[in-house]
């Protein structure tokens, strides 16, 4: 390492980039078009992972036999934030070349980063991006002059349209052929007390010498739109309008592929069921593997639509405005404005919401957001809410919709309150003040959005898929073993059915099957655990059968509906095709002492439990990935379970005290 590189920066442990081939690090300011260039170069040939031991995403792809590593978006290399430390570490590992994406509309600031990377003694190619926008705005930059000033290649490009990429490729080839040692370049020697001032004086001077303004640069569209979109009141209303549109897409369009996936997996299940003899293996395949995978993949359309929309919104420049207008409101809860998009996304699914928290710079702010997101009512809770609303207010759509509104409100209020409390206890600290660039509005790139969606879907399947598969099999085993012989009544019914023919025989046989599966579940390990935890659940108004439902839905909330269908003898298939018959049976269900199981107090208590409890292992798997530790998913599980227990306890006991049974 040269003297210039060490004088400002602390020594960083280099991060190995990989050993094969020619390695190019791609750096640039946020909003400089770095990701667009990365996508244009690498397309689908990318890999996403975290830098080892961190929560910073590492995207790498292949281009022309080179490995391209997309560094986090940077303004500075001073190693203040984790992103900057990683970028320094990667550059210290001496990639064979660094492409620095410079924004032509903001040359001086781009050069601030370029000059620091030049000092790392890595061969640098400056990709002067958005030349078209600059020309439109009356800014002319002389690339030749700039190259002479900086002592490195400068290639004008338009990453969005692909203009200039052939020249960029030629510049890479030149570096490749020569395996150039970094030239001793013009350095600003900014090691004085105010390094910002000195370095900026240098970049301002160079930018000034290389730029000609043909007219006053202005982005009239951005100015005009921002008058409204950053307005304290109009801006907030506009934000809710935009999010409403996104939600409309998520809930009204996603259900088509969701139904398709659902049909595909249940079709696959019955196809296997027909072709395999009745055995544990068949049950494992149908219920454990296919059921579990289907239950996870059914949320994929929502996740994809959400990421697609968010990527488009981000690309237009709107998302920065959303964070800007929400900042003041969110700060009261101790969260930054950027946390609001994840908080809204969590109404569809907590998983994409947690992945979307990467935009929050401050680690503590981000962690608090991740921890509270699962409290927001996601779409997996809808079947549970539907069931409980029907049990509470049968045939009264108006009151049933109040149940939904209440549950969603409770979830959002709980999330914001939990954030407020966490910021004052476990994760004490002031919310980081907002510093956020509001880039000029532009047309979004469908290609970038599609690649982003593809990438996120891969992360979801890889991380949530494996754990869901393991847990589905484990839960299936819990609900299946140890086996018990069919109950005497069922045997009697079967014998009776054997003497009859036609429909009556079928009905008796079906009744016997329901009794057998009820008996099997009741005597399985899950049933025993349900009985064992009944004393704990009793103060909440739950009996051991609801206990089984809670255990079986530990990995995915919506499973409680089918479990209750089995345990209350309706049969899974019937409950799916005709939910009313399930609700009727549940309404009639009685405890051993003859009292009804699903009283108003029990239903209300169960509703509160499902609003507040964690009960989703896919989310936990993503929390683990995004926090890079086991501690936080465990903390999340514990605090939410305690919250759910206490909440249900209060509701049940209060309702009982007021005479509502």
């Amino acid at each position: 390492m040269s003297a210039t590189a060490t004088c400002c920066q602390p020594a960083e442990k280099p991060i190995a980039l990989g050993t094969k081939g020619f390695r190019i690090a791609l750096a640039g300011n946020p909003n400089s078009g770095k990701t667009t260039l990365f996508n244009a170069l690498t397309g689908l040939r990318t890999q996403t992972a975290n830098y080892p031991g961190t929560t910073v995403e590492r995207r790498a792809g292949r281009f022309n036999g080179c490995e391209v590593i997309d560094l986090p978006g940077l303004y500075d290399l001073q190693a203040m934030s984790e992103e900057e430390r990683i970028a320094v570490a990667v550059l210290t590992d001496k990639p064979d070349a660094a492409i620095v994406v410079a924004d032509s509309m903001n040359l001086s600031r781009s050069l601030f980063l370029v000059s620091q990377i030049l000092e790392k003694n890595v061969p640098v190619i400056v990709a002067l991006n958005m030349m078209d926008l600059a020309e439109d705005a009356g800014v002319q930059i002389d690339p030749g002059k700039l190259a002479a000033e900086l002592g490195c290649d400068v290639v004008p490009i338009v990453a969005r349209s692909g203009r200039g990429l052939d020249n960029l490729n030629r510049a890479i080839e030149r570096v490749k052929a020569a395996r150039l040692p970094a030239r001793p370049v013009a350095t600003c020697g900014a090691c004085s007390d105010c390094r910002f001032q000195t370095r900026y004086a240098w970049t301002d001077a160079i930018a000034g010498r290389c730029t000609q303004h043909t007219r006053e640069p202005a982005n009239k569209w951005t100015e005009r739109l921002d008058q409204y979109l950053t307005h304290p009141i109009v801006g907030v209303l506009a934000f809710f309008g935009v999010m409403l549109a996104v939600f409309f897409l998520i809930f009204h369009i996603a259900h088509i592929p969701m139904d398709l996936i659902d049909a595909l997996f249940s079709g696959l299940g019955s196809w296997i069921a027909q072709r395999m003899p009745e055995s544990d293996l068949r049950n494992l395949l149908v219920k454990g593997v296919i059921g579990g995978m289907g239950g996870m993949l059914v949320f994929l359309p929502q996740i994809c639509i959400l990421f697609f929309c968010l990527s488009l919104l981000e690309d237009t420049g709107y998302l920065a405005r959303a964070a800007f207008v929400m900042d003041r409101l969110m700060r009261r809860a101790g969260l930054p404005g950027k946390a609001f998009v994840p908080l809204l996304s969590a109404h569809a699914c907590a998983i994409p919401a947690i992945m979307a928290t990467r935009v929050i710079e401050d680690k503590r702010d981000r962690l608090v957001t991740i921890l509270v997101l699962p409290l927001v009512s996601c779409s997996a809770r809808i079947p549970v809410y539907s069931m409980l609303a029907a049990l509470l207010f049968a045939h009264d759509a108006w009151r049933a919709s109040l149940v939904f509104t209440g549950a969603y409100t409770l979830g959002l209020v709980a999330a914001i309150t939990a954030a407020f409390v966490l910021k004052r206890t476990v994760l004490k600290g002031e919310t980081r003040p907002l510093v956020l660039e509001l880039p000029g509005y532009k047309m979004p790139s469908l290609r970038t959005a599609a690649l982003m969606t593809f990438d996120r879907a891969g992360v979801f399947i890889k991380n949530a898929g494996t754990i869901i598969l393991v847990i589905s099999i484990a839960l299936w085993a819990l609900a299946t073993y140890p086996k018990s012989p069919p109950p005497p009544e069922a045997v009697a019914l079967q014998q009776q059915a054997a003497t009859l023919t036609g429909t009556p025989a079928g009905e008796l046989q079906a009744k016997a099957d329901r009794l057998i599966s009820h008996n099997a579940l009741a005597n399985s390990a899950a049933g025993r655990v349900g009985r064992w935890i009944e004393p704990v659940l009793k103060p909440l108004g739950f009996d051991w059968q609801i206990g089984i439902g809670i255990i079986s839905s530990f990995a995915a909330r919506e499973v409680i509906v089918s479990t209750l269908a089995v345990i209350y003898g309706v049969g899974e298939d019937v409950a799916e095709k005709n939910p009313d018959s399930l609700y009727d049976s549940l309404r009639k269900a009685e405890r051993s002492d003859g009292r009804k199981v699903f009283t108003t107090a029990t239903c209300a208590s169960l509703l509160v439990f499902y609003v507040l409890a964690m009960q989703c292992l896919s989310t936990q798997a993503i929390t683990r990935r995004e926090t890079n530790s086991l501690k936080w998913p465990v903390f999340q599980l514990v605090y939410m379970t305690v919250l759910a227990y206490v909440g249900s306890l209060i509701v049940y006991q209060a309702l009982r005290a007021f005479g509502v049974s």
Partner: protein
Amino acid sequence: MTIGSTTNSLVATLRIRKKVMNEAPMMPVPTHLYLNEIPSGAHAVVHRIEAADEAMHRLMAMGLCVGRELEVVRQGNPLILRILGARIGVSSRLARHVVVTLS
């Protein structure tokens, strides 16, 4: 003589006054304000930065350093600044630590 000396002193006074008036803009008149106190649309030059946390470093890396001219596009919390042609949203909590001179 009295008149002459009076005239002379008057001319001298006027000369001094004129000199003072010419020099007045160059004298360090204390017009320093905090960035969160100046109105929307105002242009100002950064005079002093009174914080050194991570958020302030980010702002400085974006070009807000001593001597830089900037514009307050929209005052408020958060406020919008124009620095080097870029629009940047900043918490007023951070703007309270930046001393500027109106230009």
